[in-house]
């Protein structure tokens, strides 16, 4: 999204007279494009939205009025500014292509526009359905390969010396910055210029980027490099999480004969056990009544266990010291249960990643915390 806006800003100074679709000299346009290119280098940070202008800076084409990039209604972010670039041919990277065949250009346009929509939406969580995305990606790769082939041939055969020199100097930098851009991938120095391998490289780099995110998520992946090992870890982790869910739901099923979850008491016990602030959030959302009760009780200074006992239905008048001692008695069985649970975990998930023991240790930590709490 950043990419489009500076280009639009450049549009405006370059086309101050062009707002109504007037004529702007080709030279001015070129200058604007060069400025914009340099801006792009600074601003571009793995940005997907590149405007095709990058390549069109070379050739001032004599055919101005034919490169209507019709602003696709799906495209946001400043593409509508091209509505007046329509007549100028400013917004087109198709200058070269038009020299080949006009018909081919027209056939390229719709998928390209779709590609750009996809590029914009790709960085955010995709709202396009996977079907459309798959169709577009198929098209995209074809478009990329063909277009790249065409463009690079054109660039090599370019007669305008100055602009190609500058552009070729910018090439290495630009390709570094633009490695995620579908349309304008260029060959780095000393690498194959085959359009297929370019597309492949883009794809590979995207995947490696995603792998880095995964390394943060999946514990224990820091040491592993390479796709196969990472995928292995991911698979193990997903499997272990799914098994945990199964196990926990089974456990809940055994505990509750009737599937009636007493939400209030759950929340209060959770507040007591974990002592997290989030539990307060739970209660405030789910059961406002209990929250208010809790609040009033806490103000009166009663022990939260009192609340729990109340919810179960035991007698209310319990002196504080008695509650404390009873709490001590209660914690011990829960600690033993915890040990049982740990054993269960270990049996179930013995061949899984090391997160499980960590998590059970967290358990004991929270219990100890609550012990301390009660001593106070």
């Amino acid at each position, binding site marked *: 999204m950043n990419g489009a806006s500076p280009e639009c800003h450049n549009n405006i100074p370059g086309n101050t007279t062009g707002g109504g679709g007037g004529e702007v000299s080709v030279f001015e346009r070129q200058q604007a494009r060069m400025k914009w290119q340099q801006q792009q280098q600074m601003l571009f940070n793995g940005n997907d939205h590149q405007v095709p202008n990058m390549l069109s800076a070379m050739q001032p084409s004599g055919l101005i009025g034919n490169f209507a990039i019709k602003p696709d209604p799906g495209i946001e972010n400043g593409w509508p500014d091209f509505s007046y670039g329509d007549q100028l041919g400013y917004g087109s990277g198709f200058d070269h292509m038009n020299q080949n065949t006009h018909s081919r250009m027209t056939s390229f346009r719709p998928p390209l526009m779709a590609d750009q929509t996809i590029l914009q939406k790709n960085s955010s969580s995709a709202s396009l359905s*996977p*079907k459309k995305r798959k169709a577009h990606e198929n098209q995209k790769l074809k478009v990329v390969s063909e277009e790249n082939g065409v463009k690079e041939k054109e660039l090599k055969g370019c007669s305008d010396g100055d602009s190609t020199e500058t552009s070729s100097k910018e090439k290495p930098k630009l390709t570094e910055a633009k490695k995620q851009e579908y349309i304008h991938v260029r060959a780095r120095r000393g690498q194959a210029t085959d359009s297929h391998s370019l597309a492949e490289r883009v794809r590979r780099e995207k*995947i490696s980027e995603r792998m880095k995110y995964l390394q943060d*998520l999946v514990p224990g992946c820091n040491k592993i490099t390479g796709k*196969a090992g990472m995928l292995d870890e991911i698979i193990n982790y*997903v499997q272990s999480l799914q098994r945990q869910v199964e196990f*926990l739901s089974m456990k809940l099923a055994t505990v509750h004969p009737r599937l009636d*979850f*007493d939400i209030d008491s759950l929340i209060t016990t959770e507040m007591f056990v974990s002592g997290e602030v989030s539990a307060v959030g739970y209660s405030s959302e789910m059961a406002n009544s209990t929250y208010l009760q809790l609040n009033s009780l806490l103000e009166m200074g009663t022990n939260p266990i009192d609340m729990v006992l109340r919810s*179960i239905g035991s007698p209310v008048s319990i002196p504080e010291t008695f509650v404390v001692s009873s709490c001590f008695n209660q914690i011990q069985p829960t600690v033993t249960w915890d040990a049982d649970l740990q054993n269960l975990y270990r049996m179930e998930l013995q061949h899984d990643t090391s997160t499980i023991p960590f998590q059970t240790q967290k358990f004991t930590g929270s219990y100890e915390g609550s012990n301390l709490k009660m001593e106070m």
Partner: protein
Amino acid sequence: MHTSSPLKKEFLKKWMEGLQICCSSKKQMNVLERKKKIKLSADIAMASAKKTPTSWSNALISYARRNEEYMILTDQLLGPESQFNLQKSTDRMIGFHKRVQCKKILKRRNTYSAGKRTKKKTGHPRLISATLIAKRLVKKRTKVLKRLVPGGESMDEFSLIKEALDYILSLKVQVDVMRSVVTATEILSNEKSLKSVE
């Protein structure tokens, strides 16, 4: 853990709603049925608690809907949310992807049979086989991952990884919440038993 607590809250709320709907039907269920219901409502709650419906959440919901038993539950749970009414589109998508896959298989078979005759091993054979082995491993594992992540069959490798990331996050949330519910119920039941002993 960097799981967000509003997501946890949302998930817990929806899960409890689903369970209440479940237990409103008054028949006796054995352990397995109960477990299924718990898991199902947890899954649906997880899928619906996301703000932006991703592919796996849609897939989960569409799978749940297909089974007639669960359809009522899911519809009740989701309510009038129109963002999940994508059943038809997911079906179409799956059909489309299967067609694409069949074509891929045919192509692969043709090129493989053609390539076997004309293939020349250029370069050091050991290096080539190493890369081939690596590629094969990656392919195998992506297949396994596709099976694991719901709705992963009809996705290319790149978006599969993204979906897997998302799915891992929500599974973590699910596990956390369920575990805390389990501990809370355990404590409650222990207290109850102690009280009854006294």
